[in-house]
């Protein structure tokens, strides 16, 4: 259950003190190469959740409020559910995390992001949608959770 974004962040920060030296060595070794992605951060439990409430509870440990300050850009009709362009943006201050959920998919949570200070709350990606579904965007701002949702009509299912 240690899948919450803030919990894993704490784990990273505390591990960071001890691992700083080895991280430095690793960084020197890969000079031009970027920092490696850490599989241990992955919130596995949240990605296995089958409802929005469960996924958000596992990921953030709290429930969201509806907000009009999140722009969720989805097509009204998606002909091919395997590739649905989705953009989300938010004018909320101090956004620390964002997530996208698709309520009719086998697993509700599609993707989640942790933002460093200075990273803009604006991103675009492509999702698979199994069938006509509500897509939910969730934004964590100043420690509180906000959500907005939009319906996408899927002509040809694409869970795969």
């Amino acid at each position, binding site marked *: 259950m240690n899948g919450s974004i803030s919990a894993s962040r704490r784990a990273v920060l505390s591990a960071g003190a001890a691992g700083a030296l080895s991280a430095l060595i690793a960084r020197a070794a890969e000079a031009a*190469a970027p920092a490696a*992605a850490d599989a241990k*951060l992955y919130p596995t439990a949240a990605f296995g959740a089958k409802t929005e409430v469960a996924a958000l509870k596992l990921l953030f440990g709290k429930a969201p409020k509806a907000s009009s300050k999140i722009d969720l850009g989805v097509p009204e009709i998606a002909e091919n559910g395997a590739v649905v362009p989705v953009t989300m943006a938010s004018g909320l201050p101090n956004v620390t995390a964002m997530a996208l959920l698709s309520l009719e998919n086998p697993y509700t949570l599609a*993707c989640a992001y942790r933002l460093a200070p200075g*990273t*803009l709350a604006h991103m675009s990606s492509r999702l698979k949608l199994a069938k006509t579904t509500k897509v939910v965007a969730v934004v964590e701002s100043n420690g509180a959770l906000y959500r907005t949702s939009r319906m996408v009509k899927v002509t040809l299912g694409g869970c795969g």
Partner: protein
Amino acid sequence: MANPILVRAQTAHGVTTVACLVKHPMDSGFVKKAGKLIPPHYIEVIEFTHNGKTVLTGFWGPAVSRNPFFSFAFKGGKKGDTVGIAWVDNKGERAAVSAKIA
């Protein structure tokens, strides 16, 4: 593996936009091929760095499309700075790439 990540990073008005195209099957584990399920194989964690400092960490599930396209933006970043992308998938495979901001 040949370099499977295409990156474009551009800066304008103090904001750097990073767009990337990652080559990956992103198999969800629900699709059948010749009567057998293709086992799940998808990117779990993708890390974006600017001059070695993490700007964004993404957690992806099997609902992200095959050969994912992703773009985001961060404040700061100058021409010639390094933007790095690294991912690890559920089978422990990894790839990383770095590019200069144009």
